[in-house]
């Protein structure tokens, strides 16, 4: 099977399985001519041309005036003024007028130029030849000869040792970059395996950091929580790294409704504590349906059944939501029994 190379002259290649490429792909049909040009109104009627001249100029005048309006608006419209524009609703007056003025000004300049081109500049299509890209055989021969001369002069082929060491050196150069990139970040270590949760760590509400007693959580309720030590840790570290792992949710259901837990007595009087970080790609899950005990991740809709050990019942997440064993401390506040018994959040290679 041979492919069809460009014959260069529009004629079929012997043995070609493809028709030759002509204007019509069919050589026996004569080529068509350019269509007859019909003059535009502006070509024959000087008054029409004058009218277009005025129209184009008007558009350009708008282009001159709008920047001036823009300046005035910039100075005189207060930054914080809100106006109610029909359809759009309440919007920043400054943004609305500045944008409209600038947009209309730019648009008119463009419209003027195109109107000018379409009505007053020649609209007769012209024909130019295309030229072959391929060099002539002579060009090619000269190029090859010059290259061979250069190669010969360099001794690249003769001095084997130079050639090999050069290739080696060039291949080795990128190795400089590797150690330099190493300090982009620390090694993962055990960071993904542990969280701030530990035995006796109080469960406090997110944002307001209030400790909770069992009575604070009604049946059917859901509370977003974090470990009590998180705010202090965050102040000390200046980052939100622990906040990306440790958020939990507390839900309460009737003990009879709990079908299964990840460990015996990990609940406290029907209060269950699950990680809030989705086991798919790590979004915080937040949508809870109290009747079915389903927790839905808003990012990719993975759905977990919190009454059944956090099992995945729908969506792309593959693993159950990790459960945190809880109890109460001597003052009656909800606390963790321990850290999570497995890494929280999305999967990773070393997770096991």
């Amino acid at each position, binding site marked *: 099977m041979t492919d069809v190379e460009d014959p260069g002259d529009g004629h079929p290649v012997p043995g070609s399985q493809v028709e030759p490429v002509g204007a019509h792909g069919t050589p026996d049909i004569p080529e068509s001519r350019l269509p007859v040009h019909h003059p535009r109104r502006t070509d024959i009627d000087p008054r029409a041309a004058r009218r277009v001249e005025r129209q184009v100029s008007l558009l350009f005048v708008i282009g001159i005036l709008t920047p001036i309006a823009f300046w005035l608006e910039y100075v005189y419209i207060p930054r914080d003024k809100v106006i109610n524009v029909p359809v759009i609703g309440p919007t920043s007056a400054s943004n609305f007028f500045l944008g409209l003025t600038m947009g209309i000004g730019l648009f008119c300049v463009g419209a003027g130029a195109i109107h000018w081109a379409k009505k007053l500049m020649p609209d007769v299509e012209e024909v130019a030849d295309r030229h072959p890209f391929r060099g002539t055989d002579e060009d090619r021969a000269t190029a090859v000869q010059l290259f061979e001369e250069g190669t010969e002069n360099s001794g690249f082929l003769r001095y084997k040792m130079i050639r090999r060491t050069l290739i080696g050196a060039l291949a080795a150069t990128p190795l400089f970059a590797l150690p330099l990139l190493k300090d982009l970040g620390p090694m993962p270590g055990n960071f993904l395996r542990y969280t701030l949760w530990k035995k006796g760590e109080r469960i406090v509400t997110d944002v307001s950091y209030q400790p909770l007693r069992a009575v604070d959580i009604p049946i059917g309720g859901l509370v977003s929580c974090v470990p009590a030590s998180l705010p202090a840790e965050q102040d000390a570290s200046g980052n939100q790294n622990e906040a990306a792992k440790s958020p939990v949710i507390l839900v309460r259901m009737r003990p009879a409704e709990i079908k299964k837990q990840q460990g015996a007595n990990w609940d406290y009087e029907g209060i269950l504590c699950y990680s809030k970080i989705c086991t*798919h790609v790590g979004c915080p899950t937040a949508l809870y349906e109290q009747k079915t005990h389903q927790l839905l991740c808003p990012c990719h809709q993975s759905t977990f059944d919190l009454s059944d050990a956090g099992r995945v019942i729908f969506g792309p*997440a593959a693993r159950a939501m990790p459960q945190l064993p809880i109890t109460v401390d001597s003052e009656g506040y909800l606390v963790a029994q321990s850290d999570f018994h497995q890494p929280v959040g999305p999967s990773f290679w070393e997770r096991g």
Partner: protein
Amino acid sequence: MSADTEPAGPIIEIGGKVADAADQRLGISKYLKNNINKLFPDHWSFMLGEIALYSFIVLLLTGTYLALFFKPSMTEVIYHGSYVPLNGVRMSEAYASTLDISFDVRGGLLMRQVHHWSALLFVAAISVHLFRVFFTGAFRKPRELNWLIGVGLLTLAILEGFAGYSLPDDLLSGTGLRIAQGIIQSIPVVGTYASFLVFGGPFPGTSFIPRLYIVHVLLVPGILLALITAHLMMIWYQKHTQYPGPGRTEKNVVGYRLFPIYTAKAGGFFFIVFGVTVILGAIASINPVWMFGPYTPTEVTAGSQPDWYIGWLDGALRVMPNVEFSAWGHTLSINVLFPALIMPGILFTLLGLYPFIEQWVTGDRREHNLLDRPRNVPTRTGLGAMAITFYVLLWIGGGNDIIATHFSLSINEITWALRVTLIVLPPIVFVITRRFCLALQRRDRDKLLHGYETGTIVRLPSGEFIELHAPVSEEERAKLLAGVRYQPIALDTTPDENGVAPKVTLLDRARARMSAFYFGEQVAKPTAEELDHGAHHSAELAAGYARQLEAYENGHPNGSGSDGHPNGSHDGAADGHAGESAEEGRVIEASPRPTQH
């Protein structure tokens, strides 16, 4: 031209001096002489790439302005700016400075919104431009390299957009970054390390926004600029493709001059694109980050949606079944890895390789400067429609929660419906599109042979009704006759002079089979002879009717019957079709036939 046109004296004089000075030092006259009258063909679809180019320029302009005010830092500050609802809230400097740009810098919000709208338009224009190039076969030799650059530009544009909307460090963009981090972490063996290196430690850390910033404002735009330059230089050097039409051949280019026509048209179009995006920035709020609040890993907004061009990837993540393997202490998250990395990797590779695949299947390595009409290449058009269907379904998947809440549907049912349709629908669309193309080819053939239907119904004296057909115009004819009809590549099994059959490799067989699939069915183009015959036949019929009518008006109702021309119902119908019924929709057989070499 206007009567009061007068020579613009000083401008010409100064311009002349500058040109003279430049020519003496740089020899610009030689360059101008060769290029100022360069011709470009005209078609609305050639403006799609222009929109992409102009949005890029708008992005550079507005982006530079934003960079003057934006602080790419994750250092936490307490906000005390003009936006009262967030007063006293702890947030990153990046988010705080984005609020400042939106509320305290006059015109800052406008520039932010124009920047965001242009970014959406940039990727959209590139995508539609890609469709145009694909469906018209503009990627064929000699333009394969420019296709590859285009695919690179699309990929970088998507990355650049994602990087851009992730910078403000608001709750929505932070959620997007969390997902990106989860994806990186899913890579086997190196994923965890890669994530720690990229984020400078655990997610979210404090290094990522500054790092992303330099990627967004220097690295990627730099590469984009270089690739766009190469893209344009190649278009310039290779000359633009053109649609088939009267006087247009593979060897010429028909169009208008660069100067002044395209200087005015393209320059004006830049202003129009700029103007429209600024108007959008004025009237249509986009990415109101102040409503989302600062990023914190403990919170999320319901109905989180990425920008439109990330939607299909998000959709892929959503509809993927939850396959994950765990063995020997290692976890392999196919549920993340496949939709987010493997599937897009395969798709973009196929996209980049398509010109080479098609070239191999067709065996056509000739230069093509005339564009295909999509109907004339049914398999390619079908494949394109199939790919778009797949993409759109994934994109719908990305909005499955919005669809569920707006139309009160079950999200589980939508997701399952998508899982099924993603596999079933694209092939169906392929088959239907191919049939459509063939039907359109048949219609073209019909028009060429029998003319177009004028819509004029005439009642003949014999009582029958006929519709008059008229030959298509010369322009239409040139368009309809364009395009190449291929024969499938056949296996060469002809024995040589010694009676030994040539070796047929597995690859040869695969190629022959693919070629047969590619060109399995097409409607033959009329030959010159058929065209002549068709024209002659139509003329004869018309003359026959004219005689009948004339005879009728002269009071001899059956006057034309004697010359043996149409007065029977069968021949009357032939004006439309029956006369050529033998060739009607003639289909070239798919079966590979041995051919001589």
